[in-house]
């Protein structure tokens, strides 16, 4: 899943905590600024089960984390290099 509109300060830990409410999280890949290698407001999340990702779309998409309304969307799957934003 692609998760967007995160605060630049939101950590992987926070993302784990929130998204685990829908099921077992396989991994989180933080989106990083291409040059500075710092978080830049998005991440990828992989669940073990599709049903958990569906629950995430239903119950977490559009709610808040770090006071920001976060957006989740289906994603084809993470591949190396995609974690870098446009800076």
């Amino acid at each position, binding site marked *: 899943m692609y998760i967007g509109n995160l605060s630049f300060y939101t*950590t992987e*830990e926070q993302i784990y*905590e929130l998204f685990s*409410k829908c099921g077992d999280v396989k991994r989180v890949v933080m989106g990083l600024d291409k040059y500075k290698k710092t978080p830049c407001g998005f991440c990828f999340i992989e669940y073990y089960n599709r049903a958990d990702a569906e629950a995430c779309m*239903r119950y977490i998409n559009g709610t*808040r*984390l770090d006071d920001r309304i976060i957006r989740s969307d289906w994603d084809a799957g993470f591949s190396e290099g995609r974690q870098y934003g446009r800076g």
Partner: protein
Amino acid sequence: KRRKVSENQDIEDRLESLILRVGEKSTSSLESNLEGLASVLEADLGSFRVKILRILADCATNMPEKCTIYTTLIGLLNAKNYSFGGEFVEYMVRNFKDALKNCKWDAARYALRFLADLVNCHVIAAGSLLQLLDNMVDAAKEDGVPQVRKDWYIYAVLSILPWVGRELYEKKEQSLDTLMSAIEVFLIKRHKNHHEALKVWHSDVPHPQEEYLDCLWSQIRKLRQDNWAEKHIPRPYLAFDSILCEALQHNLPALLPPPHHDSYHYPMPWVVFRMFDYTDCPEGPILPGAHSIERFLIEEHLHQIIESHHLERKDAAAQLLDVPYKQKIPLDYMIVEVIFAELFHMPSPRYLEVCYGSIFIELCKLHPSRMPQVLAQATELLFSRIDSMNTACFDRLVNWFSYHLSNFQFRWSWEDWESCLQLDPEHPRPKFIKEVLLKAQRLAYHERIHKIVPETFEPLIPEKPEPTFKYSDDTAPGANTARAIADAIRERCTPEEVLTGLAELPNPRAGVDEGDASSYNPLKIDVFVQTLLQLGMKSFSHSFAAISKFHYVFKVLAESEEAQICVLRSMFELWHNHQQMMVVLVDKMLKTQIIECSAVANWIFSKDMNGEFTKMYLWEILHLTIRKMSKHVQRLGSELSDARERLRRDESHSSESDEEMGGEGAGGSGVGKSGSGDDKDKPSEDMVERMEERLEAAQADQKNLFLIIFQRFIMILSEHLVRCDTDNRDFDTFWYRWTIGRLQQVFLAHHEQVQKYSSTLETLLFTHDLDPHILKVFQQFVSLRA
């Protein structure tokens, strides 16, 4: 001809849409809509009889909230076309029977209710319905069937009486009285061991937490006292009385409940959750009393809305706020009570906890002038009664509240809770605040939590989630090695090089023979685990990467269970201020098979963890461990049955080919004869046998895990009870309550798995010489499916 087909399709679609939408908001009255629709359908009965029959029957079970609208429609159709009425009754009866056979209990109840309401519409004769109800009550008199089966039949009968009670009373008073007496006899004799275990609160003050059948029985008795006069259910058929009373009635065919079968699962009993009464909602309409039938009807409707809309939280919130009788009741309060009832439902809520949390958020957004206020009042009430709340619900409340706060900038009037700072830290109230702040910190960050609570709350503010690295102190034994390894790991050394680096460390365990299989070196483990995890401290991903890169070192150092407990202890010493880190690390180490489930269980009950024993995260770890084990067993089980199935199919296939190919062995040449294309993963007898062995091994592990956990519970609890007895102290301390609560939680949260080992547990652990306080918990668990 094609045009004819598509025209028919159009008409069918139009009919379906008309039927589905009747009763929705409209410019004309419901009565005139129903009258119009009945005429349209009557005209189309000639060509679309079957289709109409099917749509109407589907509506009856799929839209139970519109039950009386559709029964009226059927009544009008029956008045116009008697044979169609008969066909419909037959169709519904078949649906009802099928639902019973397929264990679709709610569908069965809705079908029964529909049949009952057809008595009100003069479609079915009152006497024949009573005959059916009598048969159902008879099912509750059978011997040798589970009580939950009998319970369901009684529940089904009672729950339709609000609809048809009055009619039966007017037409067949005596038979109705007999039915009621039979039910009463059943209820008096009924066992209720499960009641205690399923309560949200141990205390019945201020609101009794009633067993569901007892509660419904009181509500029905009250209704009977009121001469079965019920004012809540909309009854559109009353307007058509003059038409309907002319119609001829049908008799239900003789119908006996299908006999019990071992594969049948019946609904588990529950306890009716109550948190409000009329004094809690001073403004606006009055909250119906706990034993008024309205309370039952409204609650059932709200639960049903949640059921139909739980996949769309926005729709769920909108529908809840838009029930037709909202002017007559304090709807906000009832919604809040019903959602908490679901969240606290024992043994587990029917949907994800976050589903309820997200519906609450939508309700607050949709109704900002009222909802946040009612929810705040509810939270206050829950907090004030938390002393007697069961431990599983305590956890759910902590999770919900911290999540809810994080969606609303953590605004809360914390000052109001200041008084509990004086209490024993193990008291549920300060404990609740502490756990909420811990969870809130996981969703936010340490500094934020500092800012949201008053300074006086300092003692309850969680520690900063940082590691405590033992070997940063140069004088600690092993510090030099730790530094050397850390440098080597930074230089990207191999796992073997780490082991070489550790080789020098002496074994502090005296008299251990290094060659012994059970030998392990706690110092080596500690230096390695602390150093590695300290290097990966930056994030979960860093830690995970470190663990998988040096997986081999873990395997070499920690083969035995004692050694694995050492790994856990070293991790704990490093990360004791970061609970979430410990949770995910244990999870990771279980997944990568560095540690076994039994090691985690024994570690949790070890002396080292005494100080942590009543903290929520430790139980989060235990439950995730048990779940991991259960999932493993379930996966092996379903793989095995898959393989068996494929083998069976293969055999029947190869016997066919035997005939064709003159006895050549199965799968010999493997020429694509099977056609399904799964030749390559066709299992052999050997493979299935190996899978059976694996499953048996996993089940043995699972059983062992439960035995460890329950034995450790029994040991510490008995020890406590005996010590208090000799010291002449009250045993009922906070510690005791938390621990008994955790034991209860393990039984209930994993009841489906534990059930399989029930008799082993009874013979080995929960024997009759055990202290009754502990034994009681086991007996309550057993009675859940009795």
